[in-house]
């Protein structure tokens, strides 16, 4: 076991997977010589060469579009989108082709590509470096989505994504790239997609979250010292561990969902709908959401007023407990 930062665990996963499988390659903007703007791909080009860790032209749709052709030629490309909001040009390829091509070939051809990107706010960055676009991706048939919140999961979920036969998008919470440190198994390490993680056990209320909202929920749980709070880290949005969600809801009877993406039709709405359909008799209060707002992600001087805070989570928990 090594003690790694979350971003170092991403790097460890890439080194491990490129060493394990000759057909895995990394491509993206500034991933090679520079090792990535967050250093997630550091050392790959030196170790595996320019053909396995490729500095591409600055074109996100071109990166994902050529990755489809690379799959057809037998590669397993891992594409870095430099920032969340810079991934929007690649949605064209993602929606029209990535999620459909296996289907379009009648199941004959696999497209085992990975898109990974730093996402989320709170980092005092310029406009469009702060978005949480996971819903666009989860909503696309044929595409799977994972979001780690710990260094070990950052490694294990990325390894699972790379080995998965379907296209997988991995969002890495950049806010905690260098603040979350933890034990990470060395060498081969896979955290299977589709399994949620109970970050903290409790009996009174469940906080459901993923990514950077998980440590936030844990801080809120610390604050609520008179309440037994369970924190459920969804970590795999598709496939979703519905059983874990329903089991926790059945145990506590109260659920607050926390996401930093805008509220409307966000992934939290999907989780709330599942609870409405399948957990009604277990619930002792309404399912509440603490989310971003239906506004553009703000300039950073006021971003703390946008991001879900410990206070907002605590308020929501008090509200659902009082119901």
């Amino acid at each position, binding site marked *: 076991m090594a003690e790694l930062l979350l971003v170092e665990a991403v790097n460890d996963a890439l080194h491990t997977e490129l060493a394990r499988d000759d057909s895995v390659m990394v491509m993206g903007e500034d991933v090679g010589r520079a090792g990535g703007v967050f250093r997630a791909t550091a050392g790959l080009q030196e170790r595996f060469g320019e053909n396995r860790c490729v500095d591409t032209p600055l*074109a996100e*749709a071109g990166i994902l579009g050529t990755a489809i052709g690379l799959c057809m030629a037998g590669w397993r490309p891992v594409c870095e989108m430099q920032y969340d909001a810079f991934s929007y040009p690649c949605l064209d390829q993602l929606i029209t082709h990535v999620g459909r091509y296996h289907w379009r*070939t009648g199941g*004959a051809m696999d497209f085992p590509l990975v898109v990974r990107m730093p996402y989320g706010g709170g980092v005092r960055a310029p406009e469009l470096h702060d978005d949480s676009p996971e819903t666009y991706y989860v909503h696309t048939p*044929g595409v799977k989505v994972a979001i780690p919140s710990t260094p070990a999961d950052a490694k294990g979920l990325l390894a699972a994504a790379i080995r998965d036969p379907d296209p997988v998008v991995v969002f890495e919470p950049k806010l905690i790239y260098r603040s979350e440190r933890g034990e990470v198994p060395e060498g081969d390490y896979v955290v299977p997609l589709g399994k949620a993680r109970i970050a903290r056990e409790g009996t009174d209320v469940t906080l459901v979250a993923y990514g950077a909202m998980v440590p936030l929920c844990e801080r809120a749980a610390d604050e609520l010292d008179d309440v037994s709070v369970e924190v459920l880290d969804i970590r795999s949005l598709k496939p*979703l561990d519905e059983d874990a969600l329903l089991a926790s809801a059945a145990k506590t009877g109260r659920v607050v969902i926390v996401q930093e993406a805008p509220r409307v039709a966000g992934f939290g709405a999907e989780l709330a709908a599942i609870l409405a359909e399948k957990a009604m008799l277990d619930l002792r209060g309404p399912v509440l959401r603490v989310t971003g707002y239906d506004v553009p992600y703000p300039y950073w001087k006021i971003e703390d007023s946008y991001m879900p805070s410990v206070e907002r989570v605590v308020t929501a928990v008090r509200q659902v407990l009082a119901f």
Partner: protein
Amino acid sequence: MAKVAPGEHELRRVIDEDREVDGLGEQELLDLYRWMVLLRTYDERSLVYHRQGRIGTYAIFWNHEAMQAGSVYALEDGDWIFPSYRESAIGLLRGMPPATVLHWWRGHPAGWWNPADYNLASICVPIATHVPHAAGLAWGKKLKGERACAIAYFGDGATSEGAFHEGANFAAVMGAPLILFCNNNQWAISTPLSKQTHAEALSDKAVGYGMPGVRVDGGDVLAVYEATREAVELARNGGGPTFIEAVTYRAAPHATADDPSAYIDLERVEEERKNECLGRYERYLRKLGVLADDLETEIKAEAADAMRKGIAEAEAEPEPDPELLFDHAYVDPPPGFRDG
């Protein structure tokens, strides 16, 4: 960094110059003729089948046969083809049964095929988004040290799309063995080329990517073949991609749902129809003494027979099982994917 000459503006021609192409003997000339007849027959029969309600909306490629047959003939079987919907039947040139293509236009899942069976990507419906796929495949083959190159087909309208640009640029930067084949029929549904680009010629775009740009008479199957052969040779020898602009004029509606009389110059269409590519090639072959009436009749009868069998086979296919909805959306589907 590449230094390339400005794109040619003169159209390369063979038939109108009464030239012959090195390496093409009687057998090869007739192979090409068979291919063009097969495509023409497919297209004309499909229009009939559409009117009879036997296939759905159909994108006509009448008078594009020279571009398709001439370019594919310059490839090896191991080379990859990335078609747009205008090249829906190009797989026939690789041995795909007509029924498969007819299934596609009948909206039947039996129109799925395994691209690896024919080295033929799936038909791309959105404009130009397959250009990066072709660039990626060509680049990926090169990285693996394989010999294959790729060709991507698209129309004049596609050159306005970002995906065309990104694919062309990637191919050039990566030195990918790719042929960017633009069938410039001068219309994107009702939008003429003059509203698509301010460039004098589409081939000029190649200069900006640092690749050769070639202009060829798109109604001249031999000129298309010769230009593509040159581009393939360059690609295979590590010279990277070439942009080929094949110039023609759309002499048929965009698709069965389109009425061009609302926007097109019908006299110009009439002129093009008189000089359509199959007739031009027939006259050339007859002049060379390679084609005579009986052989022409025989080749056309073979193609008509293949189509008769194709539509019969397509119509004999049972209706698809609704369970197919859930097949192949994922290799390893998430648990809730059938919930609706």
